């Protein structure tokens, strides 16, 4: 399953890119599992996802929790807690 991943703020800086298309391995069912798998993809990812508790996620532009299923997501975004306003 190919999913577009998007990164914002310091997650983007650490990963080194703003977005990428990723082939998610079978067996990765939740957003949290996706983060764990991403952290294993290399030093920059390990750095970005070393503390998944502080990373927020959105599936198709809607906030989701780590335990949320990936389902048929076409776009998943990872970012730090928001600081707008």
């Amino acid at each position, binding site marked *: 399953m190919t999913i577009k991943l998007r990164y914002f703020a310091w997650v*983007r800086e650490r990963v080194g890119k703003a977005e990428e298309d990723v082939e998610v391995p079978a067996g990765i069912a939740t957003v949290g599992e996706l983060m764990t798998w991403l952290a294993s993809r290399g030093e920059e990812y390990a750095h970005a996802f070393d503390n998944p508790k502080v990373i927020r996620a*959105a599936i198709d*532009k809607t906030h989701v929790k780590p335990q949320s299923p990936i389902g048929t997501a076409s776009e998943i975004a990872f*970012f730090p807690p*928001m*600081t*707008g*306003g």
Partner: protein
Amino acid sequence: MITTIRIQREPFDAATEAKKLSAKRTDVGALVTFTGICRGNEGAEPIAALTLEHYPGMAEAEIERHVTEAIERWPLLGVTVIHRHGRIVPGEDIMMVATASSHREAAFAAAEFLMDYLKTRAPFWKQVEKADGKIWVEAKATDDVAAGRWAAPDKKHQAAE
């Protein structure tokens, strides 16, 4: 009901935008305007500017969702939310929320509700330029507490899980 949601790089004039909510009508009795302004310091350190990154598409959708919720919760006659992105220097306006209603209670409550949610749920991230480099602003726990006070009783339980 007038609803305006804009995310833009350009400056805006908060007064002009707010006035649109009460112009040429006589049912608005209360107009609340909140303007968020770029300060010249972050903590004790001076900053040269801040840069706002946002998630296009999701930012609009999140704001719209909360504006819709505000309209459902309070008897509003108009809502305006404008949020800038890009580089902003101290003294410039960052964003605004304006709410119009017949009575002040609804206008105040809706403006505070929208601000608390924008702070914690709208996908914007602030980076400040300090003397020793660029720093991402950290989210404040107090903002989560502020947003939590608007949760419906059944949602509070959900949030605590």
